[in-house]
């Protein structure tokens, strides 16, 4: 008898050995767990096979890289435009008194409100027709200034940059203000040469307020407390949400939980009919305690059904 024949003989005899089968209850439990898995986690829309499984990660990486590059680009662009602003406004400022420095420093501190004046001048040009009727109305309200011819927009904007330092504070109330921050924050100018009634000035000013487009974000944060409160509430709500807390707590508890406790939890879940959760917890239990012998009394209550 050759070695191969002997091996065949061993295999033949082995096949004649008892054909043990898993118990029927075990089969049913495993099949039920498989069905539950399908119910709770349906199949992916596109099965990630072959090259396709790299599509999503690569797309995500591309989006992240693009976002980072764009953010860097925008951050690099901003200082350039900001540097341009003082150059325009500094020329007349040098001629002015020292008092002009303070408001300008304020303006520079508020980066968002210190939008490039050139941009503002451009915008002013575009929006001139819209502002014109309001300006006319304001001019009608201040008869002293009514005779004064309107300045060209570019000149206006540069003049406005130094507006608080000018010796004639009761400026034309109808004049369009590209940077409402300092103007709005500045104390009301003392009545001087122009007898324009203050009430009318205050009424005219809000009409021109839409200018804060230049400082949208800063304006939104500072000038709209209800919106900020809403945002804070939303963030706080997320942090305080029960889902957030229970997940964190459950994780912390699971780390320190002894096997007996986990088994009890599984048994409770099974009693409550939450089979899927019980299965998941059982898998977790087995991962943490691979060789823990479940007591006979608990086995019925714990093993998947």
């Amino acid at each position, binding site marked *: 008898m050759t070695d191969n024949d002997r091996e065949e003989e061993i295999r033949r005899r082995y096949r004649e050995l008892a054909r*043990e089968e*898993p118990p029927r209850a075990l089969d049913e439990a495993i*099949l039920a767990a498989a069905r539950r898995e399908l119910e709770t986690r349906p199949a992916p829309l596109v099965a990630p096979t072959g090259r396709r499984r790299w599509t999503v990660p690569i797309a995500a990486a591309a989006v992240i890289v693009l976002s980072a590059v764009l953010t860097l680009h925008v951050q690099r662009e901003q200082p350039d435009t900001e540097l341009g602003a003082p150059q325009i406004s500094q020329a007349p400022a040098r001629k002015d008194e020292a008092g002009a420095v303070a408001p300008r420093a304020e303006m520079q501190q508020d980066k968002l409100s210190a939008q490039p004046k050139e941009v503002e001048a451009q915008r002013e040009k575009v929006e001139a027709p819209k502002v014109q009727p309001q300006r006319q109305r304001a001019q009608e309200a201040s008869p002293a200034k009514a005779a004064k011819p309107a300045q060209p927009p570019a000149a206006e904007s540069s003049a406005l940059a130094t507006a608080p330092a000018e010796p004639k504070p009761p400026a034309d109330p109808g004049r369009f203000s590209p940077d409402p921050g300092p103007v709005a924050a500045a104390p009301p100018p003392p009545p001087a040469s122009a007898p324009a009634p203050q009430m009318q000035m205050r009424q005219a000013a809000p009409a021109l307020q839409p200018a804060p487009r230049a400082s949208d974000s800063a304006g939104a944060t500072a000038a709209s407390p209800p919106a900020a409160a809403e945002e804070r509430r939303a963030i706080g709500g997320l942090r305080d949400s029960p889902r957030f807390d229970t997940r964190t707590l459950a994780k912390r508890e699971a780390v320190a939980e002894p096997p007996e406790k986990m088994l009890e939890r599984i048994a409770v879940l099974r009693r409550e009919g939450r089979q899927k959760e019980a299965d998941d917890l*059982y898998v977790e239990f087995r991962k943490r305690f691979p060789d823990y012998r479940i007591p006979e009394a608990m086995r019925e209550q714990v093993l998947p059904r």
Partner: protein
Amino acid sequence: MLDYRDGAAAAFEALYARHKTPLFRFVLRSVRERGQAEELHQDIWMRVIEARSRYQPQARFTTWLYTIAHNRLVDHWRHSGLRIVSLDDEDAQLEEPEGNPGLNPERQAQARQGLERLAHAIASLPPAQREAFLLREEGGLSVEEIATATGTNAEAAKSRLRYALAKLRQALDD
């Protein structure tokens, strides 16, 4: 398994029906205690179910299934206090088992003496050799697949299989 991953429950039933008996016997003859074998069998299938969504057909399903089973058994032996080194010790001898409580006593009584001897010989093989033999006989794995499932190379798998067969032959001759 791919069909099951894509949502077909019937595919899993077919898969389970095909593999449950060989896998159960593989586990039972590895641990030699029916209660433990049932638990391990269930754990292995639960792992299969859990891994459904990330299943990638890189090898035959059978090889993948028995790889999971091997890993589970290694965990079991490690936690039972058996030295993991015994898995790779080709000449290691385990003490003669007292009997096979996993086998039905009535069947044991009916079994021929030769078969009983074979069962005892299998049970007394070193774990690595027994595993290689059972993977061949129950899983129908080739030498390369046994190597993949047990995380070793083909030469080692072949050697284990050869030793196992030689010892079984000797047991039958005695």
